[in-house]
């Protein structure tokens, strides 16, 4: 038997229109939760892309002046090696620094083309024996004043702090997103239950004249799917807006040091939208599926 597409569309349309307020609430909840999931996915991807993770291995960075003499670099190197508070040092010459630079900024060809190896400072990546912030900072101070040193950065600590707080924030966004998805399932469940109730006479007659179960259920399942997919559609808009806001306000903005390193590609945005579309469809199918199997028993 052919599926009467016009029948399913007509019935689904009527259901959606009849429950306009509930439908609206369900779609909005789906949209908000999916936007949060997408944002969380993008931030998570951005953190993995950033050098926050790379830097967190290091505790202290001693940047040498690009114009520093060879013997000034040697002297700093020797002093670091002799210091009892230093466990490990790693020297980044110009080529190594440039390699890292190219990796980190691979998505910004403009920046890459305007910088050469000569523009970059060489540096010592220092792992102190102690992780105590005061000890590390005292160690840093002793090198900050040395000849040829450009500056000392406590990047590790700071980077880790930023990473930690962004991660914490992201976890909460995920938790709230997941809780809202749960709420979406319940709302869709409730909307479909209301629709089933509103159509109980039709359903009774359909049963009586020998309609198949899937035929009776189809419009309700489709209705739930429409909730999920409409929500995902709105959330796709929300995701694009979030992406645009992030790009404009953080990425390449010097004021947000480190936060501006959390970046993602347009491919990631597409992945995020595909993921939330799948979750949206699943949410709708699960919500209506439960309602239909509970209230349309054969």
């Amino acid at each position, binding site marked *: *038997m*052919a*599926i*009467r597409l*016009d*029948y399913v569309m007509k019935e689904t349309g009527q259901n959606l229109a009849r429950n306009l307020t509930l439908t609206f609430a369900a779609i909005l909840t789906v949209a908000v939760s999916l936007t949060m999931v997408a944002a969380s996915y993008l931030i998570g991807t951005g953190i993995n892309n950033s050098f926050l993770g790379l830097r967190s291995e290091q505790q202290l960075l001693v940047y040498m002046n690009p114009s520093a003499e060879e013997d000034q670099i040697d002297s700093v190197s020797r002093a670091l090696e002799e210091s009892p508070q230093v466990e490990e040092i790693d020297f980044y010459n110009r080529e190594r620094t440039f390699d890292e630079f190219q990796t980190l900024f691979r998505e910004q060809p403009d920046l890459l083309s305007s910088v050469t190896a000569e523009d970059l400072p060489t540096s010592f990546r220092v792992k102190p024996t102690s992780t105590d912030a005061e000890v590390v900072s005292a160690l840093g101070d002793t090198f900050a004043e040395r000849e040829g040193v450009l500056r000392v950065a406590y990047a590790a600590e700071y980077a880790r702090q930023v990473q930690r707080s962004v991660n914490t924030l992201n976890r909460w966004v995920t938790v709230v997103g997941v809780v809202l998805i749960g709420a979406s399932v319940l709302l869709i469940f409730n909307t479909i239950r209301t629709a089933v109730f509103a159509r109980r*006479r*039709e359903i*009774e*007659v*359909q*049963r*009586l*004249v*020998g*309609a*198949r*179960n899937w*035929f*009776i259920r189809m419009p309700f399942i489709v209705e739930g799917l429409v909730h999920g997919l409409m929500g995902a559609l709105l959330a796709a808009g929300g995701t694009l807006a979030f992406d645009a806001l992030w790009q404009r306000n953080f990425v390449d903005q010097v004021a947000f040091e480190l936060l501006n390193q959390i970046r993602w590609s347009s491919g990631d945005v597409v992945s995020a939208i595909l993921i939330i579309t799948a979750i949206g469809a699943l949410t709708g199918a699960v919500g209506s599926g439960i309602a239909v199997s509970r209230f349309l028993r*054969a």
Partner: protein
Amino acid sequence: MIKLDNVTKVYKDKHVALRDASASIEKGEFVFLVGPSGSGKSTFLRLLNREVKPQEGTIYVAGKDIGKLPGYKVPDLRRNVGAVFQDYKLLPTRSVFDNVAFALEAIGRPRSAIKEAVPQILELVGLTSKSKNMPDELSGGEQQRVSIARAFVNRPLILLADEPTGNLDPATSVGIMKLLDRINRTGTTVLMATHDRGIVDTMRRRVIELDHGRIVRDQARGVYE
């Protein structure tokens, strides 16, 4: 066409609706089910389209043991067993035409077939001129005709009627009975539960009398009592 072998139906509240009932009904028969309220008439009918299942005994409809029918095949059974009720069960928001068409839509008939079949059946029940009316614009008798049209539009082998004249005055009831008789003459087996003594005594068809769930009389060309 229909055969009940020692059928017992007990509802969840322990009420015994039908007790050890056996009967055999041939194709094309017209059978009245009579008996006081609660004697098991409705249950008898509801067993035949698997709205309820018996605890004991077997029921054959059109040669099939419907107790063994898997759930997904119940719709096939119901397409062969039409049903009309005392309260018509019409959809108040749909016109006469759409109420009848709804039954065909529900079993996936194409639109062209629906456009052909509905006017035919409306002519049979004498409601051609009312096809665009809504149910609440019709008299009780007319509403019951729509309900019969809906049950018969798919040409089922069996038509179950549960007190179809229960809400109608005697003159209107006669019209409904003429219609059911006409349907019966097309070869459709008709089972009708009723309290209407006048109808049973006039028609002189087979009568099965139930009392407290037991078949106490099964009489060809019988009367109400």
